[in-house]
């Protein structure tokens, strides 16, 4: 095996692509802004500079490890350089830290603190730029941008959207949509993955906290909430719970203290989705038309397909997302009570996702002109509200969600991870039932981190071919293959974010490899520990179909394809 010397210690080279990876393996946490292992190497931030035995300075992220190399990461020269780099970055950065939403959770703050910078000598002579509030999903504040390009590369390489890029050069360099357009006028799908990688407050989640507090304070408004499957695994992150802990009980308790009138589980909506989408798949298979059927749970994907691949828009399931089904049913459920009590029902959905904020405003998600979901809060916003309310989250006793929409199957709970929707649908469609078949399906290739997974299932005498993609760039590759006839599928699950909703654009940061794994493990644990593992076994589903939906499947559970406002 080959070795190199890092700070006097011998470290093996095990196929790492750059010195930075070797250094981090050796237990030294070099600061970086622009390096992400899943993105191309960019070498812009220069924070990872190291020195070799001849005193040469290099960026360790873009230097290949070679046997016998001698690298020092902590010399007076390096410390001085690093400090100067961060000082220059800060000199043109809006330093209103105390009122920034990233305060206390900001990479720029962290690294400035780590390198021991205590004063900035240079004046900020950058022109103040306008904040882009055009998108319902994310906010772009160019004044806080440090030009690391993480968002640009994520948008282009992982998501194949490319809504933003660098423009101009030198001191005028900026990250912007083409021609200085607003985000809302671009192909941005609202997935929020740019916000996930942004080390500062330059890209943040568009917040709806105030309107929810206002609704709670209004006695004439019945505020009901639904909590998405991926939220419960992440909300505890900021309250010291181990990563991936299922904090659903505590979250329900906290939201009751905050004043929500009822707290439900989006997983119930997911159960409805499983039933409806399976029905749709069976119908399309029978008629052999509009195949493959693409899932419609992910609003980032739906917008991506409509804008970049409109020829496939007809293949997207007509089902609303679990959020949409849930809100439509709940609004109908409370319609009479609202009339009697003179109240208005306000549905708040707590989501891991920024794109959901745009989904609720789509006319095809309205029921008879009524907006079903009134407000979407991401996980980080509900965390903010818990803090504002002064609730000691970690000390709360868990409580169960309200009835009737508080009961859901384990199949629904795995909607928050890539492959989950497919697994749930396969369970529902399978003729055999029982734990053996559950285990069989889970090992059929639906689980795991891969960007593209393939499997097949026998339905009747037909071999149904299934693909599961996550990350929109992977989806684009797949669509190209389908278009060229190179690949053929009957059912395709797409999630815009790599690995699914557990790392959605509205989830708390940081989301490193361990956090991601723990959240995925956590979500499968929720499933394993459910008494109900099949959507059709959820007794509330049958009851609601009879009492509330009552033949109105098309009106409440499907998108109104004809209605455009």
């Amino acid at each position: 095996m080959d070795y190199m010397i890092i700070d006097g210690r011998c470290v093996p080279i095990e196929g790492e692509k750059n010195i930075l990876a070797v250094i981090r393996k050796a237990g030294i946490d070099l600061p970086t802004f622009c390096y992400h292992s899943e993105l191309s190497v960019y070498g812009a931030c220069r924070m990872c500079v190291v020195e070799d035995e001849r005193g040469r300075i290099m960026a360790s992220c873009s230097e290949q490890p070679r046997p016998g190399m001698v690298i020092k990461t902590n010399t007076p020269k390096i410390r001085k350089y690093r400090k100067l780099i961060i000082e220059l970055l800060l000199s043109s950065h809006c330093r209103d830290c105390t009122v920034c939403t990233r305060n206390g959770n900001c990479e720029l703050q962290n690294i400035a603190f780590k390198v021991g910078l205590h004063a900035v000598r240079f004046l900020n002579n950058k022109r103040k730029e306008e904040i882009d509030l055009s998108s319902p999903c994310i906010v772009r504040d160019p004044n806080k941008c440090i030009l690391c390009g993480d968002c640009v590369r994520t948008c282009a390489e992982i998501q194949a959207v490319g809504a933003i890029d660098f423009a101009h050069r030198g001191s005028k360099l900026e990250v912007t949509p083409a021609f200085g357009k607003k985000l809302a006028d671009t192909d941005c799908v609202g997935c929020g993955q740019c916000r996930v990688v942004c080390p500062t407050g330059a890209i943040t989640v568009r917040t709806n906290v105030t309107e929810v507090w206002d609704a709670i304070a209004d006695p004439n408004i019945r505020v009901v909430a639904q909590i998405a499957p991926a939220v419960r695994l992440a909300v505890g992150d900021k309250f010291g719970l181990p990563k991936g802990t299922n904090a659903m009980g505590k979250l329900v308790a906290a939201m009751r203290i905050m004043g929500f009138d009822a707290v439900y589980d989006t997983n119930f909506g997911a159960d409805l989705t499983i039933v409806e989408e399976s029905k749709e798949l069976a119908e399309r298979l029978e008629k052999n038309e509009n195949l493959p059927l693409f899932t419609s749970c992910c609003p980032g994907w739906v917008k991506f397909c409509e804008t970049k691949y409109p020829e496939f828009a007809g293949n997207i399931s007509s089902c609303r997302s679990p959020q949409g089904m849930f809100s439509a049913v709940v609004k109908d459920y409370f319609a009479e009570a609202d009339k009697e009590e003179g109240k208005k029902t306000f549905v708040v959905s707590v989501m891991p996702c920024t794109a959901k904020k745009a989904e609720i405003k789509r006319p095809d998600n309205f029921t008879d002109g009524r907006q079903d979901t009134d407000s979407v809060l991401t996980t980080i916003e509900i965390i903010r509200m818990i803090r504002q309310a002064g609730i000691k989250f970690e000390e709360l006793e868990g409580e169960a969600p309200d009835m009737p929409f508080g009961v859901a199957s384990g199949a629904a709970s795995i909607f928050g991870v890539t492959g989950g929707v497919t697994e749930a649908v396969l369970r529902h469609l399978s003729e055999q039932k029982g734990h053996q078949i559950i285990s069989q399906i889970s090992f059929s290739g639906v689980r795991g981190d891969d960007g593209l997974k393939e499997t097949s299932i026998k339905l009747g005498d037909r071999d149904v071919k299934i693909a599961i993609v996550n990350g929109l760039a992977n989806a684009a590759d797949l669509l190209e293959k389908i278009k060229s006839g190179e690949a053929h599928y009957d059912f395709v699950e797409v999630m815009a974010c790599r690995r699914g909703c557990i790392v959605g654009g509205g989830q708390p940061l940081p989301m490193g490899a361990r956090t991601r794994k723990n959240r995925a493990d956590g979500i499968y644990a929720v499933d394993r520990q459910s008494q109900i593992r099949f959507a059709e076994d959820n007794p509330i589903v049958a009851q609601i179909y009879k009492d509330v939906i009552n033949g109105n499947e098309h009106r409440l559970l499907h998108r109104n394809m004809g209605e455009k406002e």
Partner: protein
Amino acid sequence: MLEQSYYDKADEIISRYGTESRWLIPIIQDVQAEYRYLPAELLSYIAKKLNITEAKAYSVATFYENFSFEQKGKYVIKVCDGTACHVRKSMSILDRLYKELGLEKGQHTTPDMLFTVETVSCLGACGLAPVLTVNDEVHAAMTPDKVTALIKELRGEA
């Protein structure tokens, strides 16, 4: 939206090169040579044809000082402000040009679309300093008074 002829022209230029992304710069150079500026709508159109995102194409076009999204006048006057011209008082030439043409600071083209004034870093004619070019025709050893005469002459031509 531009007239159809612009898009036809773009199609013709694209067909000279191909639709690989590497041809972006030659294509937009030719478009600019044709119209003396790069119409924003055409950049978006070309980006789509070459299968690059609009943001990426904009990134490339704004990186180079040479590309301009603003329509230019009939006479493009480039005033050299390189070191040699600068010490021989090119700024007074520029000031006189702005005065003669009634241009405000930050404004480059006259409203009648006759003149566009730009500065360049060096025209490579330092021996002739201070120098300016009108549509690539060189005018050497300029003085403010020669500028006034030049503008008068050009106006007469138009």
